């Protein structure tokens, strides 16, 4: 990408931003209250249903994914259209753990093999399923596999100075190839059906309000941690170098910075955060399937960030929550028309609000 490409400045005009920050903290506080309100009696005016808890838990995971994308795109200028793949890989790692925990409770009562392997006639567990019965191992894999893949793809790409649109297209091809691969039943990941019907996690039976609340808080905690981490990076020297990479990579290279290493490390970190989001997402929604790898999903996640305002961490969260809330509402309220509204929103935001919703709270600035 050329050096002239305009990017919004990262941290300016903090005063109107205070409104935004207040909003963010207030929003997170309300979120944190939801499972408590859920425990109120049904007829209480403040009671919220399980549905609200479950669905906002999902949005929290999406918000973590949006943070990860924002870190790579908003700060380092790496627009990956394959972050859905890292998210899905993290989800699959957790899904494999959940499948192993079903144990003999599957319909065929096989002590080790998941149902889908049994009725497709598999006789033993493939080697890459080993170890997933242990939670720490699964969690490690949920971070390591996306990280390694991002490291490989990033190393190949950044080394040959593939940037901008080309990088976007390559990452899109990556997630597309993975989708095709995971759809294959021979891969041993359940093909199109993926993993469902989980029973428990960490000794806690899923499908109870208590479990949902626990998962909800775990996701919220992860969101907070990811937010703090990203904020720390953004404010550190690394953050400034990232912005410099985004705005004038060649110049930075001439100054002696190893831009490849900088980009690679932030890309890998971003992929690991996305993997974590996926790992939290799967027990919350109760299913993981190759559809998560579909290129459209990744683009949608990028659009959340664009809608919220890239280059600001608050913007990523705002975008993920508002777009998904809108989608949840519209798919019930206007099932035939919601694509118009959502599509129209994407067009309007890119056209009219180049700095996203967060830009509304910041002082107008010339280019």
């Amino acid at each position, binding site marked *: 990408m050329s050096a002239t490409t305009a990017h919004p400045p990262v941290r300016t005009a903090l005063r109107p931003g205070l409104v935004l920050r207040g909003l963010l903290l207030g929003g997170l506080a309300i979120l944190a209250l939801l499972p408590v309100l859920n425990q109120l009696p049904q007829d209480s005016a403040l009671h919220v249903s399980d549905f609200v808890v479950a669905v906002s838990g999902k949005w929290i995971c999406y918000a973590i994914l949006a943070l990860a994308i924002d870190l790579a795109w908003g700060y380092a200028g790496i627009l990956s259209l394959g972050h859905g793949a890292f998210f899905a890989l993290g989800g699959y790692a957790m899904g494999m753990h959940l499948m192993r925990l079903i144990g003999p409770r599957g319909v065929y009562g096989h002590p080790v093999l998941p149902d889908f392997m049994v009725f497709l006639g598999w006789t033993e567990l493939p080697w890459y399923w080993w170890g997933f019965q242990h939670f720490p191992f699964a969690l490690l894999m949920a971070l390591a596999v996306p990280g390694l893949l991002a490291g490989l793809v990033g190393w190949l790409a950044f080394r040959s100075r*593939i940037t901008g649109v080309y990088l976007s297209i390559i990452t899109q091809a990556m997630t597309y190839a993975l989708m095709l691969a995971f759809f294959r039943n021979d891969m041993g990941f359940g093909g199109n059906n993926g993993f469902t019907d989980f029973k428990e996690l960490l000794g806690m039976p899923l499908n109870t309000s208590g479990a949902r609340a626990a998962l909800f808080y775990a996701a919220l905690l992860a969101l907070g941690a990811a937010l703090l981490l990203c904020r720390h990076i953004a404010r550190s020297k690394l953050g400034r170098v990232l912005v410099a990479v985004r705005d004038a990579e060649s110049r930075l290279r001439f100054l002696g910075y190893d831009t490849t290493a900088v980009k690679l490390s932030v890309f890998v970190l971003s992929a690991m955060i996305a993997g974590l989001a996926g790992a939290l997402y799967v027990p919350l929604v109760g299913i993981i399937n190759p559809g998560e790898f579909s290129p459209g999903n990744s683009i949608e996640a990028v659009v959340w960030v664009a809608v919220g305002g890239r280059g600001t961490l608050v913007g990523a969260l705002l975008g993920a929550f508002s777009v998904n809330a809108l989608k949840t509402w519209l798919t019930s309220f206007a099932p*035939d028309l919601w*694509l118009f509204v959502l*599509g129209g929103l*994407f067009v309007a935001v890119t056209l009219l609000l180049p700095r996203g919703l967060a830009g509304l709270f910041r002082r107008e600035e010339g280019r």
Partner: protein
Amino acid sequence: MFRLLCLLASLLLIPAASQAQESFEATAAPLAGSFTAQAEAVERLGALGDPRALPLLQALAEGRLQKQADGTLLIAQNGAVREALSGAPAAGPGEVVRINNRVRAALRGALGRLQLMSPEEAVRAAAAEGLFRSRSAENIPLLEQALARETVPAVGRRMEMALAAARLMSGDVATRRAGIATLGASSSAEARGLLLEARAAGAETADGIDAAIAAIDGRLKLRQMAETAFQGLSLGSILLLAALGLAVTFGVMGVINMAHGEMVMLGAYTTVMVQEALRGIPWLAAWSLPLSVPAAFLVTAAVGVALERGLIRHLYGRPLETLLMTFGVGMILQQAVRLIFGAQNREVVSPAWMQGTLTLPGDVTVTQNRLWIILFALVVLGLTVAAIRFTRFGLEMRAVVQNRRIAATMGIRTGRVDAMTFAFGSGIAGMAGVAVSQIDNVSPNLGTGYIIDSFMVVVFGGVGSLAGTMIGAFTLGLVNKMLEPWAGAVLAKIAVLVGIMLFIQRRPKGLFALRGRAAEQ
């Protein structure tokens, strides 16, 4: 079951001693019965050699044979219904006599016998084909007679094959060997099947059959290689068509249009509309497909202009934002088409000249529709190159690409050129839609299947190079098809994607890299 019993009962009631007249009628009567009875009756009618059998069997094959409640057979022709045997006008239409595959196979043999001496070349060829498939030693004299009279070499070759197939069924070893020799000289997979069947039936000629099969296999291998190459070219031509429009909008203008697939979809829907509009005009209806090409170009070009002037021009220089915005546009276009035309597939009828197969030398068969699409892709490529090289618009477009400011100072209205370029690229996508409608679903989701492949082709070939796009498309098509028999369709596709990713990192600018200032952007 009940019908079968009735039929048996009615058969028993027919006096056993019968004259020729009654015999024909008795033979024809079961055509109104069960499928088994039908198949046997068809075979007997074919063997009888009675000329009255032909219209009866043709009517049965074409679904024009009807029956009344009492079993009287009727033939419908040109809107009139007559009694099949007497020719007298029928009181009213009866129930259409339905057949199944078994009856259809019997009909093919019987009609083949009856039509082998037809004055029409095409009918004789079809008859020979039917006899080749139904193969019975009883047909040997008939085929020999027909072959002796045949003057058209192509039909004669078919008759020879049919004769060989019939000889294969003969009880006489020498005759069988003659049949084996003829079949062994062909390169037809069907002949191979017949030989294997004969080998399983009797051991006396096994050595001859083995040699014949080995000979066929050698030729089949060559033939399959040629056919795989054709399949690769065909896939490549689809990729080329889908990617060409993108090569213009992305390669020349730097606009990432995620709604490109939807442009292809709109082109396919235009084809449907043109076809439906022309349905009432018989002399034009046959031309609906060629007429769809300019129509699709104009429709999608118009949408392209609207898109460029209304939205995209505000985002020049920010390709990633364009990507996100056009993703939204794609969503809107898809849902709009779904609401207007329905989510179901729309039917596109292929004209007769695009159906069936064409046999090339060496028995290589290629499907007509794909052959036409390859030609179409090359023509569209040629026109695109010509438009860019030799027209004023092309000149201005190249000028704007190379240096927008200087082009503007030279008096070129760059905004207009941008709009026209985008319209041009979209129009090409629309024309691709016309071709795609001939092989794929016409549904609102049509575009999503092409967008990633198109990007891959453009990036692989080299952004901004039409020659690169063409070579890229055909290379990917061929590689994909050559991998497919080994790896299966999915792994082949994954391998191609991974291959492109690795290739891009070796050569980030693709096969044909642009040099100079333009490449730096």
